[in-house]
C-alpha cells in the first residue's frame, strides 16, 4: 500500500474538493473536460469506490500483473497497484503534446542515423564529440549500418512532468528500450473490468490497438510475404519478464533468446524442432552489446555470433536499431532543442527539463550548491536500466548518485526539482492529491508516425515528493485522453483502419530447439538419476564384507554393468571385484564432481529447468528444485553407511517418479513434452543395454567349466526393476536366454529395450511431422529399423542352453561358447552404437540443425 500521505489533508469523498490539481483550479468546480467524470465519482458512494478498489487489487493478482525491482541478484516481484481514479489529460494540451512528442522522436531518430553515418552534427559543432564517443552505448561496430527508411527508433518513449503552471517537460528519453507499454494496456483492461461505470460519462481514446500497430510497423520492414518476426530478449531471469511475455503474446510473435537464433550464410534463422525458420525482423528488447560476441568486444560468450553482419548486409532488420541507446544519453538533454532545430529546422514544440551536465566545472559548482533541490541521474542508461526504485531504495539511490558525483562528475546530470501538478487519487476512503508523472509512447515508421493516446502515469508516494524517478511504489493510474469534440473516438483510428495495411498473419510456431533440447536433457538426467538410484539400492543390499569370494564374483558383473551405464569405464574394465564397493556407491550417489553421479544429474536437470522456466509449469519447477535441494542436503561423508545410501536411493526413486508424474499431468503434451519423453526412453534403453553388455559375456562363459563365475541374474532383474515381470512371464528360475529375451525383446516391460524403442515411435512421429527428415537423417527411421530387427531377433541360437537336471554342457564345447559370447557382445555393442547414433540424429534433426538444409 502507498505510504500514508502526510502533507495533503484527506478530503472527504462526498465533497471531492478539487483544489489546485489537474482537475480544477481551486474551486469546487472542475475543468470542463473532466467534469462528467468528477460528477460521476461524486455520485458514487464511498462504499462503491472502495469496493471497486478492492476489485482492482484482486484482478491485478489474478492477471498476475507484476513488476520486478532491484538488481539481478534479488529480483523481487511486486504486485502492480492501480488507482481507481484515472488521470485525465486536457485534450487541448494533449494535441500540443502529441505534436511535440512526434517532433522530438523524429529528431532523435535523425540524430541516430547521423551518428552512425557522417556525424555531421558533431562536424557542425552542435554537440560535442565526447557526448557520442564516450557513451558506452555508442557502438563503433555499427558504423555505416543502414536501417530501412533510416528508422533507428520504432517504439520510443519519454518521461514527462507537467508543472503546476501546465507546462509539460521531458525529463528522460527512452528511445532505445522503452518499457511499460504492457502496463498501459493492462491498466486500461483492469480498470474497465473492475469499474466499467467510470467509462460511461466520458468518451476517451482507446489504447488497445497499439500493440497491433507496432506489429504492423515491424511487419512493414519485412520483404517476404509471410514474414517471421521475433521479439528478442535476454537469456535468464528478466527484469521485465511480465512486460515481454505480455507484449509478445499480444503481438502474436515468438519471444526468443539469443540461443534460439542461428546465423547461417549471412541469414538469421530461428531454430525450432520443425527445422530452421528464416527470421525477417527482430524486435530488440535487450541491450545491443550482449547480442553479438563477434562484433562487440564485451559481449561475452552469449549472443548470436554474426548477427550484426546480417544486419549490415540487410538480410534481417533489427528494431530498435543496434546502438540506439545513445539517444537516451541524459547529457544530450540540454542539447534537445538544438538537435530538433538542427535536423528539422523547426521550433521545438515540447520543452525539456533543465538539465546540468556535471562534466562542466561551472555546472558542477552550481549543482553542488543547490544539491538539495536537484535530482541526480546517471548519464548512461545502463546504470539504471530496468531498475525501479521502491520507497526503501530511494535513500540508497540518492547516496549512490552523490558518491558517483564526487568520483565521476562526468557521469552525472542534475535536474532541478519540478513542482509537478497533482492528480486526485483514492487512498483508502478519501481522496488525496499526488504528483503524477507520465511516460508517453510513440511509434515511428510505416509512413504513419503516431503517439499512443494515453501513457503510463505513475504517482508519487506523498504530495511533496519531487522524486520523479521511476518510483513505482505510489502505484499507477490509467491515463485518459478525452476525445476532443466529445464524440465517439473515430476520426484517427478509422483512418488508420482504412489505410492499406499489410496483414499481420498469425503463424503457428513449434517449440524452439532450445526449449526442446533442454527438456530432452532434463528427461535424460532424470532417468539417469532414477536408474542409478535403482541399481545402487539393490547392489548395496548385499553385505559385501560377509560375502564369499565366489559370491562376490557372481555379483561383480552387475557392478560392472552399473559402472558402464554411468560412464565409469575404468571400473567397468576391472575384472576382479573391488573390495570397497561402498565407496563406489558413495561416488555414484553423492560425488558432485562426477558428472554421472545422481547429485550431478539432479543439478543438471534443475539447470535445464531453470533455462526454460517460462516453459515449464510452476509445479514441475518446484518438484525439480525440491529434488535437487534434497540431494544437496545429504552430507557427503566419506563414511556414509549403506543404510543412509539406501535411503538416499529410495528418495531418488520417489522424487523422479514425482517429477515424471508432475510433468505428464501438468505440462501440455506438445513438442517439448515429446522431447522429454524421448530423453527418458533413450536414456533408459542405453542404460539397459549397457548393463546387459557387461553381464552377458561372463554369464555365457559360466556355461563352461573353465569359468566358475555365475552372475546373479535375479539381482540383475531386480536392478532393472523387472524381476516381477520375469516371474509372471516364465514362472521359473532365471535363465540367461529368458532374461535377455525379456530385457531386449519384450515390449511391455518398461526397462526393456524393445519397450523403449516401441514407445519412442509415436513421439518421433509427432516430432517429425511437417519436417523434411528423410532416409538416414531421420531418427524415426533408425528407431523403426532397430525395433524391427529386435522383434525378429532369434535369441535361441545365441545363448547356450542349460538343463539343470541333465548335464548338456559337454555338447557345447568351450570354443563354441566363446564364439557365442563374442557374437552376443557384438550384437549388444551394435545396439549401443545405434542408440548413440540415434542421439546424434536427434540432435541434428531437432536441436542443432547441423545437417539440415535451410529452408
Amino acid at each position, binding site marked *: 500500500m502507498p505510504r500514508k500521505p502526510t502533507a495533503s489533508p484527506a478530503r472527504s469523498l462526498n465533497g471531492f474538493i478539487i483544489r489546485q490539481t489537474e482537475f480544477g483550479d481551486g474551486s469546487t468546480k472542475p475543468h470542463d473536460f473532466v467534469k462528467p467524470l468528477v460528477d460521476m465519482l461524486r455520485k458514487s458512494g464511498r462504499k462503491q469506490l472502495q469496493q471497486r478498489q478492492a476489485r482492482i487489487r484482486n484482478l491485478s493478482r489474478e492477471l498476475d500483473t507484476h513488476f520486478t525491482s532491484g538488481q539481478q541478484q534479488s529480483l523481487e516481484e511486486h504486485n502492480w497497484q492501480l488507482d481507481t481514479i484515472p488521470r485525465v489529460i486536457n485534450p487541448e494540451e494533449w494535441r500540443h503534446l502529441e505534436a511535440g512528442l512526434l517532433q522530438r522522436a523524429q529528431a532523435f531518430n535523425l540524430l541516430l542515423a547521423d551518428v552512425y553515418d557522417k*556525424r555531421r552534427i*558533431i*562536424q557542425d559543432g552542435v554537440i560535442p*564529440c*565526447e557526448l557520442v*564517443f*564516450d557513451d558506452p552505448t555508442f557502438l*563503433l*561496430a555499427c*558504423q*555505416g549500418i543502414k536501417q530501412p527508411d533510416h528508422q533507428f527508433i520504432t517504439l520510443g518513449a519519454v518521461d514527462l512532468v507537467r508543472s503546476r503552471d501546465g507546462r509539460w517537460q521531458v525529463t528522460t528519453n527512452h528511445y532505445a528500450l522503452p518499457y511499460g507499454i504492457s502496463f498501459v494496456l493492462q491498466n486500461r483492461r483492469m480498470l474497465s473490468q473492475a469499474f466499467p461505470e467510470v467509462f460511461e460519462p466520458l468518451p476517451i481514446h482507446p489504447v488497445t490497438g497499439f500493440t497491433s500497430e507496432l506489429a504492423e510497423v515491424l511487419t512493414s520492414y519485412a520483404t517476404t510475404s509471410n514474414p517471421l518476426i521475433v521479439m528478442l530478449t535476454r537469456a535468464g531471469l528478466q527484469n521485465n519478464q511480465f512486460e515481454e511475455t505480455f507484449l509478445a503474446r499480444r503481438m502474436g510473435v515468438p519471444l526468443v533468446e539469443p540461443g534460439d537464433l*542461428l*546465423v*547461417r*550464410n*549471412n541469414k538469421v534463422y530461428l531454430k525450432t524442432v520443425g527445422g530452421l525458420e528464416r527470421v525477417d525482423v527482430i524486435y530488440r528488447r535487450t541491450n545491443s552489446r550482449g547480442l553479438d*560476441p*563477434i562484433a562487440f*568486444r564485451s559481449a561475452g*560468450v*552469449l549472443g548470436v*555470433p*554474426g548477427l550484426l*553482419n546480417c544486419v*549490415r*548486409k540487410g538480410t534481417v532488420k533489427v528494431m530498435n536499431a543496434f546502438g540506439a541507446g545513445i539517444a537516451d544519453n541524459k547529457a544530450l538533454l540540454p542539447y534537445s532543442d538544438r538537435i530538433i532545430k538542427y535536423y528539422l529546422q523547426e521550433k521545438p514544440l515540447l520543452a525539456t527539463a533543465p538539465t546540468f551536465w556535471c562534466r562542466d566545472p561551472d555546472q558542477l559548482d552550481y549543482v553542488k550548491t543547490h544539491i538539495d533541490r536537484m535530482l541526480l541521474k546517471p548519464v548512461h542508461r545502463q546504470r539504471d536500466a530496468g531498475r525501479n526504485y521502491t520507497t526503501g531504495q530511494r535513500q540508497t539511490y540518492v547516496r549512490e548518485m552523490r558518491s558517483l558525483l564526487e568520483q565521476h562528475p562526468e557521469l552525472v546530470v542534475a535536474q532541478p526539482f519540478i513542482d509537478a501538478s497533482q492528480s486526485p487519487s483514492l487512498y483508502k476512503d478519501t481522496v488525496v492529491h499526488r504528483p503524477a508523472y507520465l511516460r508517453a509512447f510513440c511509434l515511428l515508421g510505416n509512413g504513419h508516425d503516431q503517439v499512443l493516446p494515453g501513457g503510463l502515469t505513475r504517482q508519487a508516494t506523498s504530495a511533496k515528493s519531487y522524486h520523479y524517478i521511476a518510483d513505482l511504489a505510489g502505484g499507477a493510474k490509467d491515463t485518459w485522453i478525452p476525445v476532443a469534440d466529445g464524440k465517439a473516438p473515430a476520426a484517427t483510428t478509422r483512418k488508420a483502419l482504412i489505410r492499406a495495411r499489410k496483414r499481420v498473419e498469425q503463424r503457428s510456431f513449434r517449440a524452439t530447439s532450445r526449449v526442446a533440447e533442454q527438456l530432452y*536433457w532434463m528427461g535424460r538426467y532424470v532417468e539417469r538419476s532414477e536408474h542409478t538410484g535403482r541399481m545402487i539400492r539393490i547392489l548395496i543390499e548385499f553385505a559385501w564384507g560377509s560375502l564369499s569370494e565366489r559370491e562376490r564374483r557372481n555379483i561383480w558383473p552387475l557392478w560392472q554393468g552399473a559402472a558402464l551405464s554411468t560412464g565409469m569405464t575404468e571400473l567397468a574394465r576391472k575384472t576382479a571385484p573391488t573390495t570397497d564397493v561402498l565407496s563406489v556407491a558413495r561416488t555414484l550417489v553423492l560425488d558432485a564432481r562426477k558428472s554421472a553421479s545422481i547429485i550431478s544429474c539432479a543439478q543438471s536437470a534443475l539447470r535445464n529447468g531453470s533455462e526454460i522456466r517460462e516453459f515449464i509449469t510452476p509445479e514441475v519447477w518446484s518438484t525439480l528444485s525440491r529434488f535437487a535441494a534434497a540431494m544437496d542436503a545429504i552430507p557427503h561423508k566419506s563414511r556414509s553407511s549403506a543404510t543412509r545410501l539406501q535411503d538416499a536411493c529410495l528418495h531418488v526413486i520417489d522424487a523422479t517418479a514425482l517429477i515424471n508424474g508432475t510433468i505428464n499431468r501438468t505440462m501440455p503434451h506438445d513438442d517439448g513434452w515429446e522431447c522429454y519423453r524421448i530423453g527418458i526412453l533413450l536414456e533408459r534403453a542405453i542404460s539397459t543395454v549397457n548393463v546387459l553388455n557387461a553381464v552377458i559375456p561372463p554369464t555365457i562363459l559360466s556355461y563352461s567349466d573353465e569359468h566358475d563365475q555365475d552372475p546373479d541374474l535375479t539381482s540383475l532383474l531386480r536392478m532393472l526393476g523387472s524381476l516381477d515381470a520375469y516371474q509372471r512371464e516364465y514362472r521359473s528360475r532365471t535363465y540367461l536366454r529368458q532374461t535377455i529375451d525379456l530385457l531386449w525383446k519384450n515390449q511391455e516391460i518398461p526397462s526393456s529395450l524393445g519397450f523403449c524403442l516401441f514407445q519412442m515411435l509415436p513421439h518421433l512421429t509427432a516430432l517429425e511431422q511437417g519436417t523434411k527428415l528423410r532416409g538416414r537423417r531421420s531418427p524415426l527411421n533408425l528407431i523403426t529399423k532397430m525395433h524391427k530387427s529386435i522383434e525378429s531377433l532369434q535369441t535361441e541360437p545365441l545363448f547356450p542352453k542349460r538343463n539343470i537336471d541333465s548335464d548338456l554342457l559337454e555338447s557345447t564345447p568351450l570354443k563354441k561358447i566363446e564364439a557365442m559370447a563374442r557374437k552376443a557382445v557384438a550384437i549388444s555393442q551394435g545396439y549401443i552404437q545405434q542408440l548413440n547414433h540415434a542421439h546424434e540424429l536427434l540432435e541434428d534433426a531437432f536441436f*542443432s540443425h*547441423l*545437417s539440415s538444409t535451410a529452408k
Partner: protein
Amino acid sequence: MPMNYLKMRSSVTSRLRQNNEILYLATKWSPDPEWYRGNNEFLSHSAKCRPDSCLNRASKSAAIHRFMIFRITHKTVYRYKTPASESYGELRNCPQSNHAQTVRKRRLQIEPKTPLRHYYDFFGNYVEFFSIPKRHETLSVHSTAEVETTPQFMPDAAQTITVAEARQILQTRQLNHYVYLRPTSMVPLHQILQPFKRDFIKSSQPLDQALLQLNQWIYKNMKYQSGSTTVSTPLETVIRKRTGVCQDFAHLMLSILRTYGIPARYVSGYIEAYDPETADPALVGATASHAWVEVYLPGGHWVGLDPTNNQIAGERHVRVAVGRDYRDVSPLRGTYKGASDQKLQVIVSVTRKRS
C-alpha cells in the same frame, strides 16, 4: 551435453621463413587475371582496398622511384580435439592500399570451403567474415598477398611546429581523432605511467623531435623478449617488468602519446625481419607479424613509428589494420561450438620479391 562457446584467440607468435630475394622493380606489374577470378570460395581484390586519399605522398626525391615488393603468406590452422560446429569468424588480415603501399594481389582460402563476405569497419579496415555451420575438425585460413611499399619519412608538418601548437590545432577538429585519444581497456592512460617518473614529452619541443625521442626511449629502455608476454598480459605488468614484445611496446607508446594529448593508433602488419641486401642485424620483433604505432599530425597526416625497431615505419613495414588497440585489429576473431581443446598453428612469411 552443455556446449561451450569459446573464443578463439589468434596468436601473434609465428616463425619466419628465411628465403628472401633482393630486387627492385623496373616496370609496372600487370595483374594476372587468375587472381581476379572471383568465385564464392576465394575472394581476391587489390583495387577494392580503400586508399586513404586524404593522405599526402611523402616526397623525398631521392627515393621516389624505389619501392619493394613483398610476398606475404599468413596461414592459421585450428585443430579441434572433438569436431567443432557453428564456427563464425571475422578476419582482419588483408593489407590495405594507401599512400605508403599498394596491394597488388590478394588471395584468401578457407577450409572447409565457405562463402566470404566483407565490409569496412569504423577504422577503415577491410574485414572479411565467414560461417561454417557443419561439423569440422580443422579450420584453416590461408591468406596470401603481394604488396608494393615505398620508403616513408617524417612529414614536413611535424618539423615546423611544437607539441603545444600541434595540440592546439588538433583541439579544434576532434572528430577525426577523438577515439585515438581515449583510454581503452588494453591502453590505460595517466596513472599507469607513474612508475617511470618521467616527463616524456615537453610542450615546447618540436613535434618530430618529441616523437622520435620517445620512439628511441622505448627502444632503449624496454627489453624485447620473445614470448615474455601473451595477448592478455596487462600493460601494467609490461611496465613493471620493462619487458615485452612489439605489441606491448606499441600499447606503451599509445598510452604515453594519448596521455600527452597526441592522438595515436595501433597498427598491425608484417615486417621484413632481415634485410637480405646487407648483412644488417635482424630487425627485432621480427616474427613477421608485427605491431607498431601511427601518430596523427596536424593537417591529417598519419606517420608510423616502430618503437620496437627505433625507426619510422617504412618500406619494410606492410600495414594491415589499424585501431585503438590490439583488440580492434585481432587478425581472427571468432567463436565455435564444441569442446575447448584446440591446437593452433600459425605460419607467417614475408618474402621480398624480384619481378
